[in-house]
């Protein structure tokens, strides 16, 4: 009896293509990395097309291990865009750094596959396995420049702390399974509907801890700055978007689905980590002089804002999360494209001071980066403002005014360091000019994402409608 393969077509495409590309890389001619990267991007686009072809109706397969609904399709589209864009940005980087190894696109495809499976996990076991597939691929990618001690350090740090988080997740899962007698999400929701044992609460908190580590929420964020700084820049660009979106989708699905009966128990934890992430993201970034570390703290802050939506926990809240993640995806991709374009005399630079006078030497790039920074700070009319607005509105509707106020205040603090970058670019004298003509699609990514961020205000309807519909499927609407 063959399981229904209809809902898993995009995942199958990615998996089979990754193995096929591996064979081509091993047995094909040398230096095929560029071709393989191109093919991998093509594969991701094909998967994206098939993904959009899946209708929003809920479908389960493999005995309920795997679920596809509007929510999953929405998150998977974001994940596929993130993977394709970061792969496109890495082609030029791989060539310039002399690190063209065919395993890169293959492992990246496997990481993407893990993220897709995370979004669709409908069982604690499939949750864990998909998370491991994604994490293991990312550990390898973080240590990709194995002759660079910082990259190796990043990979090792990520591996050790990630394993710890996986251990906590597993421990929590085993407690939950022990008290509920099932690992299926539907079964868990049913079992906790009849009463909540204390052990199950502890288990849920452990699961939440493990997932909070994966999205890098305070106080489980310590690895983020080091890993972001040490990992190869295009890989960091992927870290900042893909795994975060996938883990967030997983977190939302787990918390409002099987563990919805325990909302009273996990809510205080989510509120705390949300507030702590926003505060730490805002204050710790102020002192940074390395733009990759700055972006790491900035991403921690963004996780805090998105967690507000989860704390609200109803349909409006989840819609806010989804809108926030989509906008976050575009502004982060654009910013990382700009960071990748920062090179002096053929060498990558990462200091904020290296951006001095960018407006005079590279007006286009400076304008795009300024747009991203205004958006991240949440200044209207950029898209980032709307992302924050939707989660704050949801919080106020639910009566969580404190959280919304903390969010607004930390946005103001955060605006300081975002605007500092704009100030450095526009008002400082150029010290040393950045290289021209980075090319390689970086300009394309920057341009497209800047346009999206800039004009979202005029046509917000498609995204908001889609996010609303996706959130509705999670609540049985």
């Amino acid at each position, binding site marked *: 009896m063959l399981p229904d393969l209809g809902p898993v077509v995009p995942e199958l495409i990615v998996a089979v293509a990754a193995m096929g590309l591996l064979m081509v890389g091993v047995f094909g001619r040398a230096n095929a990395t560029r071709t393989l990267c191109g093919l991998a991007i093509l594969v991701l686009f094909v998967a994206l097309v098939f993904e959009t072809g899946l209708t929003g109706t809920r479908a389960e397969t*493999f005995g309920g291990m795997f679920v596809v609904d509007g929510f999953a399709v929405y998150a998977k589209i974001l994940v596929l865009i993130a993977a394709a864009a970061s792969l496109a940005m890495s082609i030029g980087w791989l060539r310039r750094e002399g690190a063209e190894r065919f395993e890169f696109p293959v492992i990246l495809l*496997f990481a993407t*596959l893990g993220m897709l*499976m995370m979004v669709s996990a409908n069982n604690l076991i499939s949750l864990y396995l998909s998370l491991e597939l994604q994490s293991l691929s990312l550990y390898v990618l973080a240590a990709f420049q194995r002759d660079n001690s910082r990259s190796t350090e990043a990979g090792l740090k990520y591996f050790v702390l990630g394993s710890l988080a996986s251990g906590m997740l597993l421990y929590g899962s085993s407690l939950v399974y022990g008290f509920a*007698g099932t690992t299926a999400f539907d079964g868990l929701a049913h079992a906790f509907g009849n009463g909540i044992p204390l052990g199950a609460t502890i288990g849920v908190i452990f699961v939440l801890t493990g997932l909070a580590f994966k999205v890098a929420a305070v106080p489980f964020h310590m690895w983020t700055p080091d890993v972001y700084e040490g990992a190869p820049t295009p890989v960091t660009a992927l870290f900042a978007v893909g795994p975060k979106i996938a883990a967030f989708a997983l977190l939302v699905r787990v918390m409002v689905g099987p563990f919805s009966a325990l909302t009273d128990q996990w809510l205080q934890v989510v509120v705390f980590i949300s507030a702590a992430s926003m505060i730490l993201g805002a204050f710790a970034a102020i002192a940074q002089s390395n733009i990759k570390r700055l972006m790491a703290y900035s991403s921690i802050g963004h996780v805090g804002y998105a967690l507000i939506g989860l704390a609200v926990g109803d349909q409006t809240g989840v819609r806010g999360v989804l809108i926030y993640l989509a906008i976050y995806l575009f502004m982060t991709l654009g910013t990382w494209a700009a960071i990748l374009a920062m090179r002096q005399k053929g060498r990558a630079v990462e200091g904020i001071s290296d951006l001095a006078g960018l407006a005079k030497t590279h007006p286009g790039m400076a304008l795009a980066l300024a747009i991203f920074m205004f958006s991240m700070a949440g200044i209207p009319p950029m898209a980032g403002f709307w992302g924050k607005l939707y989660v704050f509105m949801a919080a106020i509707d639910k009566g969580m005014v404190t959280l919304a106020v903390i969010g607004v205040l930390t946005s103001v603090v955060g605006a300081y360091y975002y605007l500092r970058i704009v100030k450095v670019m526009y008002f400082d004298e150029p010290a040393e000019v950045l290289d021209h003509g980075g090319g390689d699609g970086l300009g394309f990514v920057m341009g497209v994402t800047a346009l999206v961020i800039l004009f979202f205000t005029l046509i917000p309807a498609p995204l908001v409608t889609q996010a609303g519909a996706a959130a509705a499927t999670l609540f049985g609407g």
Partner: protein
Amino acid sequence: MIVQAIVFYVLSAVLIASGVLVISVRNPVHAVLFLILAFFNAAGLFVLNGAEFLAMVLVVVYVGAVAVLFLFVVMLLDINLLRMREGFLRYLPTGALIGLILLIELAGIYASWSFGAAEPGLLAAPAPDPGAVPNTDALGRLIYTDYIYLFQAAGLILLVAMIGAIMLTLRARSGILRQSIAHQLLRSRASSIELRKVPRGEGV
């Protein structure tokens, strides 16, 4: 029935005897060989209980792979077993205590399982009727039908681990000698042998 009982007692007696010998013989190679004997007898006990799949796995995995690996390790390492056994009496009380704790815990599990009000759902675990479905069949159904998704996902994880390990550690080293069979076969007599006339009594 009587035959089964005799076989059971023979197998368990040999199992226990070889188990004791594993930790008491002087020669580590002999210890590993007794370990293999113990595995075989345990496999026999499994067969006796109708768990033919476990029996085969025990022989294939433990005897075929693990014990042979032990043998290699024992032969490669120069272990002085006499020195290792020096502290035997000193560690005996701790070891006995741990053994006792394990025994009590086992008894506790047995008691709670057979006398306590265990979860009825757990007791009636979703195992098919052993009479109707052979256990190899039942395991296969679980792994390759019910949990095929997880099985494949685990396979992908292992594949990634393998690619990652190779990618992060394999280096193309220079200056090492590799065998090239084609190159060896293409060598001609002229390219590899030089004949010299050596004058008698003078050396080369």
